[in-house]
């Protein structure tokens, strides 16, 4: 979607390292969601951060939101091989629509 875009397109790290995926968006949003899609599965939500929030955590995951620069980040600490997946950001707007980006492919190597 042109309304949400993750970068970089792909990342590769070793187990135990930290990694950050960035998301930029182009519309006014009510919230931003991060999803993870493992091979052979549908996407699953990781974090939902509302427009009046700046940071949200879920275990090893931390999401930030900067509405002034229309950007968000998802950081994963102490990565594990099972974190290997495609990570999507998805923006919500006032029209009850959710727009997904094209995703970042993360590979975590042993």
């Amino acid at each position, binding site marked *: *979607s042109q309304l949400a875009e993750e970068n970089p397109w792909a990342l590769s790290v070793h187990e135990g390292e930290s990694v950050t995926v960035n998301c930029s968006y182009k519309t006014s949003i*009510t*919230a931003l*969601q991060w*999803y993870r899609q493992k091979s*052979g*599965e*549908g*996407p*699953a*939500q990781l974090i*939902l951060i509302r427009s009046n929030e700046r940071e949200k955590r879920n275990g090893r995951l931390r999401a930030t939101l900067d509405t002034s620069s229309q950007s968000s980040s998802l950081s994963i600490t102490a990565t594990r091989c099972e974190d290997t997946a495609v990570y*999507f950001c*998805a923006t*919500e707007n006032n*029209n*009850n*629509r*959710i727009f*997904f*980006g*094209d*995703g970042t492919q993360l590979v975590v190597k042993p």
Partner: protein
Amino acid sequence: EAAVTQSPRNKVTVTGGNVTLSCRQTNSHNYMYWYRQDTGHGLRLIHYSYGAGNLQIGDVPDGYKATRTTQEDFFLLLELASPSQTSLYFCASSSTGNTEVFFGKGTRLTVV
């Protein structure tokens, strides 16, 4: 855990063929969605619905019809399948338009 079940999981059809993809959710969610996923395009919304009998057009609707027969069931219809519709299709549901979206496991459709 919210449940969205798609059938079939895999389907091969010929060009010009008629295909119906089925989706059932047991979450009592109002919203249901059909997405297609292709390499380099992420998730693209085909059709969605607010409730039984309601249908909304998504971003890539051409060549697709959809019907929401009950709150639980949402169908995607390809009446004249074309090779360009070869894709991975996901059904999803959410309680409202701006909450977590729960996805099914996907249907891989190949049009030969």
